């Protein structure tokens, strides 16, 4: 059921800050590319986290091949505007976009959705032209994502005439088709990320016609102990002297580490339980374990991709 995820053409990956949204977006892209799909991964907020995750130099608006089948880019409103004008308005703008772009920046800030529609429009355009089999978007965090993906509809309702309005139609055809477009919400087994995820799912359902395709629960601690063992871990303090005699004074910290981790896991499991209870039955939750690794960048993405691959049944 879940491996349909990579058969979509456009995936927006969002989530509360700090939950690992970029790693998951990069991992999905790596997974798709590995499965032979021509894939584009795009960072929307230009913070540079995607380049770090992919161990590559800063990404630009022009997609760059980062591995076989996988290109990466960073969204940039001015470039998107330039490309848009060239493609659709046929305005011959060679170079001198500076002042126009600066003024445009203010319109974009002022007029709801203009900046968003340029970004989303560019991605939908790549999908429409079938330049790629799959476009994975490291999208805005949960606070801004609805405004981002809902922009074409908002604009369509706000602007009565003009080219932008006409173009919202084909964008919506792509964005609101559940077979082509899906949102993946990344979360973590902690209270705030879970609460925000549940709220975000509600807002998506209420304010957009865009399909939520999956939830990724990231950094899930493995269950090392069953219930009976867990009780033993919690009570090991009362046998501490025996343990110190057997293993030296550092054993206090060893026990503390296990107790901290186990306490965190138990709390996290409760939050995940709450998440499971709140989401629609058909919506898959994909689990990615906490990675105890020294690695950063590409290696982490590979490990996340491996975990997601197992969840998605991708060979």
């Amino acid at each position: 059921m879940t491996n349909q995820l990579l058969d979509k053409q456009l995936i927006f990956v969002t989530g509360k800050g700090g939950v690992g949204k970029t790693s998951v977006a990069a991992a999905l892209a790596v997974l798709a590319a590995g499965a032979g799909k021509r894939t584009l991964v795009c960072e929307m907020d230009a913070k540079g986290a995607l380049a770090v995750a992919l161990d590559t130099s800063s990404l630009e608006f022009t997609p760059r091949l980062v591995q076989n089948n996988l290109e990466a880019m960073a969204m940039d409103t001015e470039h998107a505007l330039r490309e848009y004008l060239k493609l659709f308005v046929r305005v011959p703008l060679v170079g001198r976009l500076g002042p126009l772009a600066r003024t445009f920046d203010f319109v974009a800030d002022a007029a709801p959705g203009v900046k968003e529609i340029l970004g989303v429009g560019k991605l939908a355009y790549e999908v429409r032209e079938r330049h790629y089999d799959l476009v994975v978007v490291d999208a805005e965090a949960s606070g801004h994502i609805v405004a981002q993906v809902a922009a074409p509809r908002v604009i369509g309702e706000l602007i009565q005439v003009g080219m932008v309005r006409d173009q919202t139609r084909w964008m919506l055809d792509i964005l609101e088709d559940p077979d082509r477009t899906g949102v993946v919400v990344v979360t973590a087994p902690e209270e705030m990320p879970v609460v925000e995820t549940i709220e975000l799912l509600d807002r998506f359902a209420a304010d957009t016609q865009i399909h939520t395709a999956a939830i990724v629960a990231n950094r899930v601690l493995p269950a090392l102990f069953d219930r009976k063992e867990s009780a033993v871990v919690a009570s090991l303090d009362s046998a501490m002297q025996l343990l110190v005699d057997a293993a030296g004074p550092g054993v206090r910290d060893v026990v503390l580490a296990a107790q901290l981790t186990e306490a965190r896991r138990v709390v996290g499991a409760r939050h995940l339980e709450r998440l499971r209870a709140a989401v629609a039955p058909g919506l898959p939750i994909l689990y990615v374990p906490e990675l105890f690794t020294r690695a950063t960048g590409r290696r982490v993405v590979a490990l996340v991709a491996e975990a997601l691959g197992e969840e998605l049944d991708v060979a």
Partner: protein
Amino acid sequence: MVASRSSSKAAPATTLPSGLDALLASKEMVLVCGSGGVGKTTVAAALGLAAAAEQGGRVLVLTVDPARRLADALGVSKIGNVATRVPDDALRSIGISPRGELWAAMLDTKAGWDELISRHAPDDKIRDSVLTNPLYQNITSRFVHSHDYLAMEQLHEVHSSGTYDLVIVDTPPSRNALDVLDAPSRMVDFFGSRLLRWLTVPYRSRLFNLASKPFNQIADRVLGSRFLQDIAEFFILFQAMEGGFVRRAREVEGLLGDPRTTFIVVTTLEASPAHEAGYLVRELAERQYFVGAVIANRVMPAALTSRAAAASATRLAAAAGDLELAAQVAGKLSRAKRGPRTVDAAVVDHVLARVAESFHDVALVATREAERRAELAAVAPQVVDIEAQPSDVHDLAGLLAIVAGMREPAD
């Protein structure tokens, strides 16, 4: 932390680490910033609690979007930008006899904009036209990083009111933490922009203005002239308030670099937030703003990186499997007052083996955290740790536990 929580009968530790205590005592405004999800709001509230408890005076915590239960604990409501006092009784119930007053307020963007318009509108007619303009709400909720600007604006407002001795602001969860700081100058730029002038020139004379003709044509084709007219009408009204807005934005900006202001950067010691925190500290310094401290939230106890612990883990792993130790421990646990009633030696043995084996994973995390802490310590005047709490904080007692969990790590 599991062990230290038993000390509830002792006087509650509201005392901040000395460096942080000195920082809060010497400043009037504290801007708490950092990337999303690191616990800014909770840390801001905990700092406020400690300052009110120990330093006296009136302390205001201005939050943007607290978790509902934390908001309830502080007694703030989402309506209006009204500050409410956390009752002394509530503080006494967690064992604090406060020397000062703790106040809390929550930023209400809509109410904030309405207030701004009312203050800067030259007359009632313009004020009402703006407030009832259909684009107004849609625009104010998005434009010029509206949240960010209002947070700064509110800081100025409460500071200049002279009502509080210390104001702690929890900055909004921006896409980029620096957006908050740029918000006032964006506001000034906006009023000075060609676009605003162009939009607010009457439509007819715009057509004859050759200089703006190319832009005019493009904008009309792309957005449709009707939409531009709607925006123009709104901004013509808005422009009437230019003087007040610009002056105010400049004052707000000045406040950020004021010697009475300090920034505190909150982060976790995970890769990406720590990286962002380092960047933030350097950027703030670049802008000549004062960063008084970095607070590393939800960190592992530093002792987990010790050689002694690693050596003990290895010895424990070796001892597990020899059932003698497990049997002794099982016997001891069965006799303990609390804990499982019957304990099987095989279960204990399995537990000890797992505890020993999993230690290296946790120690690895602690080691990585120590490296990132060292990187931050190289750019910040002080780094304060807050040990991970077993569960999320949503009451005053939880805030107190955070204060108690603050440490100045030994170098």
